[in-house]
């Protein structure tokens, strides 16, 4: 590969300046003349029949412009894999927070007053609140009695189970002979692991601003990821064709998978009825109830191993409870299985996962897309096996790691797997063989894990570039900037291709109508997919550029190259012209600039196809696999290591040191990769030790930042005790060898802490979060000989 000049360098982020000055525009900052303010009345019950709704008092309040209920909305459901979500509830509410009525008023104060004047009479119904209950053949309640007749949606997967009325997706993998595998094993161990509901906690409150245009089209600003899927949802509900709908992709105040729930139709309904712009900002409580949450997954693992640690059989069952809006749970139900197949060689593998409705808050897409919860189970189980076999935790992992070119348990051929190098670096960092000394009531321990995170397929991402008269590049890419640095990555790729500095690439504002299509910020795909689109679009633009320049230089286009805003004949650095020379009227005092042949633009969409798997066996066609066809785009790999101190009197766990090593292929911007790694540490420390969105009988207990505790700076170890490292295994199809990895950064930290707690005090916490209460109880149980 030619030497890189911009890619691989830590150039400053292109969005940093406007963010430190406060001038970056977020959807929540949008204000339009004549704008109305929306508020939504939500269900206080987990499951109830709506007997009556009286909106008359609200309608009479001065300043109220519109009150809408379910009967005012189109009779269409939206959603991801299954269209299960009405715009506003019609006859029944299926969770606390389900939208029942909406108000548009001249001020926020009036809108807030108005929703309190709406009188709804409910008749409570029996609710199904427990995942194991819901998944059974005789559940306490059925969330969607008409489920089997619901339409299939555009995103994700569904496979109903005729015997289990709440199941919206059942996914299976079958490889080898599981019974034979267990027979061959010297040790069989099984266990159950559970995880908590975790909120994304993006700091920007979910916001929608809908502006109705005179011609009937809509312009929408929405603080979310997945604008293209949101556009598709709006089309389902209102029949708005793509050219009639423009979703602006503003800067987004954090995503982490928050784009899976679609409430834009509510504000759109109000805007269409009033013919006025409408702004709807969620409260923080509404973000908890309806923003989607990490699925509190239940994972059963049964492993069979040989004495030397070789895995011979693994059987897993996962139950994924979703609220009444599936919100990508169908997708997660299938894709979380990749967490179980991406790292280790498992010759005999049996997997079943069930996505199931309950009468709870919405859960679904969340950073890690299910791999986090699955690997929380696996990475503890690996330590438990190692202990029983008398092996060390590094050795048992190394023994079972997949090799380049080897088929994994879905039949997909492994490529670009840097996990062993990651593990090596982390073993060197934490030195698991050296047991740390405790002091007083504090006991110390170490934990180490490995992790993988796939990037999904099929998917696509596009880019368009325009060569400006000054030789700079205007970049119109489809990737969403949610804080991860997509704008900078795309700008670096364009700068690399044109041989210019990043400040000469101008990333243009984005929306779903004017920007090229890209699926969105999910599954860590944008660097790989849109990055390839950007690279191809630049190459396309350069072809056009060279065709214009070739006659002037008296050579053929393929003899030309560009650097620093000049086009030159390869190998003859004096035979060249400046890009502005191709434009008429660019000279000072000129009336403007144009190129007689039309604008010099490049345009490309990178499409990542896949080999469809079989939802009943999970296996891909071996012939296609042998030809290089994949199930996913790529896999990122990592290893994590921690040292903790555990207080034996209070159960408190303190993380003293933490290290992560990640394989992201070629890093496009190393400092931005570090940002992801450190951010993953911060998010994982909260999600492991304190974060749990709690409910009692379906009623949320802590939907706010006072009682739900994400990590503050206080929870982060001292700067000197945090180590982030790279172990790149370049991907043959990634741009310059890059892969996406921003989700994998938090996977395995939870299990590493659990392993370290066990190492410190001998109690194993199989249920997230690893709270002081749980550790203390486990210590007492252990003392009491339980």
């Amino acid at each position, binding site marked *: 590969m030619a030497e890189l000049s911009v890619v691989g360098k*830590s150039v*400053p*982020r292109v*969005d*940093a*300046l*406007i*963010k*430190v*000055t*406060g*001038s*970056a*525009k*977020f959807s*929540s*900052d949008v*204000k339009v003349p004549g704008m109305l303010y929306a508020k939504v009345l939500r269900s206080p019950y987990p499951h109830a029949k709506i007997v009556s709704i009286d909106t008359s008092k609200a309608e009479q309040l001065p300043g109220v412009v519109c009150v809408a209920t379910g009967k005012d909305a189109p009779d269409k459901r939206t959603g991801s894999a299954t269209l299960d979500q009405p715009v506003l509830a019609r006859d029944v509410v299926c969770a606390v927070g389900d939208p029942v009525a909406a108000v548009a008023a001249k001020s*926020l*104060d009036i809108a807030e007053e108005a929703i309190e004047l709406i009188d709804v009479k409910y008749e409570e119904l029996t609710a199904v609140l427990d995942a194991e209950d819901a998944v059974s053949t005789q559940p306490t309640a059925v969330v969607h009695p008409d489920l089997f007749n619901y339409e299939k949606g555009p995103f994700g997967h569904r496979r109903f189970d005729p015997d289990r009325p709440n199941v919206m997706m059942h996914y299976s993998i079958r490889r080898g002979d599981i019974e034979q595998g267990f027979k061959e094993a010297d040790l069989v161990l099984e266990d159950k692991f559970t995880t908590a509901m975790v909120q*994304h*906690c*993006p*700091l*920007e*409150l979910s916001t929608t601003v809908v502006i109705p245009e005179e011609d009937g089209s809509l312009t929408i600003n929405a603080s979310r990821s997945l604008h293209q899927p949101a556009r598709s949802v709006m089309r389902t509900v209102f029949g708005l064709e793509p050219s009639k709908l423009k979703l602006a992709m503003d*800067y*987004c*105040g*954090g*995503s*982490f998978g928050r784009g899976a729930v679609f409430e834009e139709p509510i504000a759109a309904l109000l805007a269409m009825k009033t013919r006025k712009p409408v702004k709807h900002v969620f*409260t*923080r409580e509404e973000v908890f109830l309806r923003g989607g949450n990490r699925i509190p997954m239940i994972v059963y693992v049964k492993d069979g191993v040989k004495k030397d640690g070789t895995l011979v059989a693994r059987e897993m069952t996962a139950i994924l409870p979703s609220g009444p809006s599936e919100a990508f749970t169908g997708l997660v139900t299938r894709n979380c299985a990749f967490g179980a197949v991406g790292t280790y060689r498992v010759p005999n593998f049996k997997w079943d996962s069930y996505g199931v409705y309950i009468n709870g808050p919405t859960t679904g897409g969340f950073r890690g897309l299910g791999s986090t919860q699955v690997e929380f189970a696996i990475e503890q189980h690996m330590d438990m096996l190692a202990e029983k076999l008398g092996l060390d935790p590094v050795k048992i992992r190394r023994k079972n790691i997949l090799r380049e070119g080897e088929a994994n348990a879905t039949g997909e051929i492994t490529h670009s797997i840097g996990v062993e190098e990651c593990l090596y670096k982390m073993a060197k960092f934490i030195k698991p063989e050296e047991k740390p000394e405790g002091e007083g009531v504090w006991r110390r321990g170490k934990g180490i894990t490995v992790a993988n995170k796939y990037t999904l397929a099929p998917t696509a991402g596009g880019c368009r570039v325009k060569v400006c008269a000054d030789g700079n590049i205007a970049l119109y890419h489809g990737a969403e900037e*949610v*804080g*991860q*640095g997509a704008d900078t990555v795309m700008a670096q790729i364009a700068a690399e291709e044109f041989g210019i500095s990043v400040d000469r690439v101008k990333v243009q504002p984005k929306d779903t109508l004017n920007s090229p299509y890209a699926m969105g910020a999910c599954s860590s795909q944008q660097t790989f997919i849109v990055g390839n689109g950007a690279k191809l679009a630049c190459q396309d633009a350069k072809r056009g550029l060279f065709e214009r320049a070739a006659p002037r230089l008296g050579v053929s286009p393929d003899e030309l190259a560009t650097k620093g805003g000049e086009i030159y004949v390869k190998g003859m650095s004096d035979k060249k012209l400046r890009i502005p020379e191709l434009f008429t009227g660019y000279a000072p005092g000129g009336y403007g600039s144009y190129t007689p042949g039309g604008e010099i633009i490049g345009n490309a969409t990178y499409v990542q196809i896949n080999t469809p798997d079989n939802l009943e066996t999970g296996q891909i066609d071996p012939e296609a696999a042998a030809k290089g066809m994949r199930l996913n785009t790529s896999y990122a790999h990592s290893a994590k290591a921690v040292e903790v101190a555990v207080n034996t009197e209070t159960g408190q766990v303190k993380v003293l040191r933490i290290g992560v090593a990640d394989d992201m292929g070629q890093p496009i911007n190393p*400092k*931005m990769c*570090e*940002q992801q790694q*450190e*951010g*993953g*540490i*911060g*998010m994982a420390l909260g999600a492991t030790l304190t974060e749990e969105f709690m409910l009692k009988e379906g009623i949320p207990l802590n939907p*706010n*930042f*006072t009682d739900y505790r*994400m*990590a*503050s*700076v*206080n929870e*982060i170890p*001292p*700067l000197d005790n*945090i180590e982030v490292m790279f172990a790149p295994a370049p991907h043959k199809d990634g741009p310059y060898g890059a892969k996406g990895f921003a989700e994998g950064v938090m996977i395995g930290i939870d299990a590493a802490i659990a392993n370290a707690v066990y190492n410190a005090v001998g109690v194993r916490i199989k249920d997230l979060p690893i709270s002081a209460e749980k550790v203390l109880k486990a210590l007492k149980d252990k003392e009491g000989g339980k």
Partner: protein
Amino acid sequence: MSQLIKLKINGVMEEVSIEPWWSLAYVLREVLNLTGVKVGCETGNCGTCTVLVDGKAIKSCLLLAMKARGKEITTIEGLKDKEGTLHPLQQAFIDHFAVQCGYCTPGMIMAAKALLDENPNSTEEEVRAALSGNLCRCTGYVKIVEAVLAAEEKIRIGG
């Protein structure tokens, strides 16, 4: 019920008509269009609305605008100097990659400014304490603390 009050914001006296229950954050964002002030929780937990009131870092979602009468208020929009040069904290946040989604950034910078104005010799522990009321979901805080320490050094040497 609305009242006319005067607020001195970023050195300029502004006269605004407010309702007595409006928070300072609401007035800054919705009335004065100073949208660099963010709102993330309205319960004083996240710190995105942090501004300086008489030099102290205050969560403006918890302060009634009425209570800010006669006080000097500084928001992120007032941080550049007269020549338009970035404050050392703003520059350090860029140079040290302390910015990701950018939503916590204005509040973080204002909280850090209150600290450095008071004590430009703060230790890592003191910086952490000063930022402990400001949440960030993207960065894990590492580069934010590094940026504040770097800005402090620059301020100390008069850079």
